[in-house]
């Protein structure tokens, strides 16, 4: 409803770049110019697209909100009544459901929520059930952290099967075992969730190292 009538909504967002790939033979671009535009427009468009493509990379480095979790980062709740408050030792009893969290630079108080790829699943489990690799990444108190972005299609892994202690992705049913390196136990995900090794400071979870593998969909 509403908003009828001619209206432009470009909104200043440039196009992401694209590839018109050749089928066979040479990959040399054709000299032809599309009928609906001129060469200057093509070059300007290409330049704009390229800048749009390049921007995120430089922006990630420059903007601490977009930077991936760093050693020494603490965690804050991403959702719920305690959203944006620091997660301490007492906030997650062993065996409680996982929480979605953002890493935060404790010095500058910068919450790294500039990219959804920084969102983390934080869970506290009995360490007796951990395999060796998971134990090395966990705190003594049983905190472990993984990327919350499913390796299948990047959906937030927001489900928890308490009886089996399994993460569940509601989008396409992938399931991960956080006691065994978040290995895939069901569904289309091609690889485990990237782990975020932790250390404890006064019992609270703190980032020890960056993600173990690339956060994103598909193969690492």
């Amino acid at each position, binding site marked *: 409803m509403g908003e009828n009538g001619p209206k432009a909504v470009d*909104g200043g967002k440039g196009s992401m770049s694209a590839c018109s790939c050749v089928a066979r033979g040479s990959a040399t671009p054709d000299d032809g110019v*599309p009928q609906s535009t001129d060469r200057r427009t093509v070059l300007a468009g290409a330049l704009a697209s390229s800048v749009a493509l390049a921007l995120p990379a430089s922006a990630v480095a420059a903007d601490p909100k977009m930077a991936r979790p760093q050693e020494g980062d603490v965690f804050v709740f991403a959702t719920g009544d305690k959203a944006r408050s620091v997660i301490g030792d007492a906030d997650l009893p062993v065996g409680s459901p996982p929480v979605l969290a953002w890493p935060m630079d404790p010095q500058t108080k910068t919450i790294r929520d500039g990219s959804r790829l920084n969102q983390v699943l934080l869970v506290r489990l009995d360490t007796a059930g951990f395999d060796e690799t998971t134990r090395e990444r966990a705190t003594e108190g049983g905190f472990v952290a993984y990327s919350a972005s499913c390796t299948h299609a990047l959906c937030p892994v927001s489900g928890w099967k308490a009886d089996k202690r399994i993460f569940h992705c509601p989008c396409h049913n992938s399931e991960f075992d956080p006691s065994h390196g978040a290995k895939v136990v069901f569904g289309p995900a091609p690889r485990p969730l990237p782990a975020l090794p932790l250390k404890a400071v006064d019992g609270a979870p703190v980032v020890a190292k960056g993600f173990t593998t690339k956060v994103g969909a598909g193969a690492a």
Partner: protein
Amino acid sequence: MKEGHTRWLWLALSGLLLAPTAASAQGVKSYAPVTQERLNNPEPGNWLQYRRTYDGMNYSPLDKINTTNVKNLVPVWTFSTGVNEGHQAPPMVNNGVMFITTPQAQVLALDAKTGDLLWRYKRQLPEDLFQLHPTNRGVGMWQDMLFLATVDDFLVALDAKTGKELWAKPVGDYKKGHYLTLAPQVINGKIIIGTSGGELGVRGYIAAYDAKTGNQLWRTYTIPAPGEPGSETWKGDDWKTGGGSAWMTGNYDPATNTAYWGIGNAAPWPGDAHPGDNLYTTSVVAIDPDSGKIKHHHQYHHNDSWDWDEVDPPILMDVQRGGRTIKALVHPGRNGYLWTLERTPEGIGFVSGIPYVHQDVFTSVDAKTGRPTYNDKTVPKVGKDVTFCPSLWGGKDWLSASYSPKTKMLYIPANDNICGRLVGEKKPHVEGQLWLGAELEKLDLSMRDKKVPEYMGELQAWDMNAHKKVWSYKFPTQLFASAMATAGDLVFVGGTSDRYFRAFSAQTGELLWQHRTNSGISGGPTAFEVDGVQYIAVQSGWGVDAQRIQDSLTKLGIPGVNPDVPQGGVVWVFAVK
């Protein structure tokens, strides 16, 4: 030059090299521009629109492949797309040039006779894009351009001859839960699309863009703002996050210049989370394509609580009822009812609604208005554990039924005996995040009467004049693909996890031919002709909801359910040997 400027120039120039926008000399040598006349009356050998014709019949008038020779149908070429996930686009053909789309926003042009790749367009998607529905359902065609609606919420125009990107316009913001999966509808140079995002609490809309410039011409929200007609069916601020996505291509009546679009579920799922009838969710809307104005509507069911998107638009056909011919709108609903409506200059009238699969929600349907009443025990609510039939994937989801004007039969790829469980929960909406209103761990399928059913998938044939089911072919597990009827008295459909592509007698339902493919088929077949030879084409590539249903059936331990349906898309083209 300052260091910052130098860096920007370097980035720009290096990006220019990495992102070629010019096209190859390889491409389509001869291309027939797509005009309004051709869209109104497509040549029998071509497939220029998602459902081939504006009326949405998904029917081919070709008959060289028919009941007598279909047993000799063999593959003449295949093409592996190199892409996983749900390949739901029909192979569309314009004078020997085939266009397919794949998940991850790719378009491929292929020589329809030989399978030679003419060009491929790959859109570079953002690294943080999460895809609830990694798929695409095809291009729109206009003149010498193609239009692609992308999962990162852009509308893209391509040169049909080269695959070169002509323009790309943002429609909304994928970070706010908007995305596009449908094949654009093209009417008189207007490119019409509708948004996805009903599971993320968007406010749905349909919008039109100018083919040449990419400028938006109109945008019509499917949920009225306060004060607009229909706003009285919403309470408080629910309209802002009420769903009503429109993620399937509409149909169109050129005689009255009216587009008919189906509208999706209300959000979040439990109805008591958004009290009221919730117009125009789960409705068909009649739209003026020139202005976007909603001329009329009919709501199939009010206050949706079952995720029963009614996005598949009704098929425009003539139906005999009560001794007269009705200009009908026929819709096998996701809610499990077969609806017949009448389209008139005054509005959309209710004619009939009867269940075509087991449905335990409606206790009655008003004879005048078609408004159903509900069995309160099967209406999901916040804090309640409810089981209902059919499941949230419905009697038929987005998949196209097919109507043959020759047999006067409607062919419905249905699912019966599959029910669903939903435990409603109340959670705050977070923009861009999944917002189902259901406890995820308790979202299950179940079988009717908790027994292994005799069948689940069912290809049904309905005589639309007699208003009765004529035949059906039953499958032990789900059927999830569009059906296509042809003038050769055949109905083609894939959709089963055993990877078969099948042809049935349109008159009797007898299985006449089947061929095993690489993966499962969840999209629609097409028929086309090149140099006097008729071909049948389909994409095989399992994923998305077909995969979800399969996973759920696997977990139920139903005997005969294949837990491992391989992914990976392949275009298959068949001809008679």
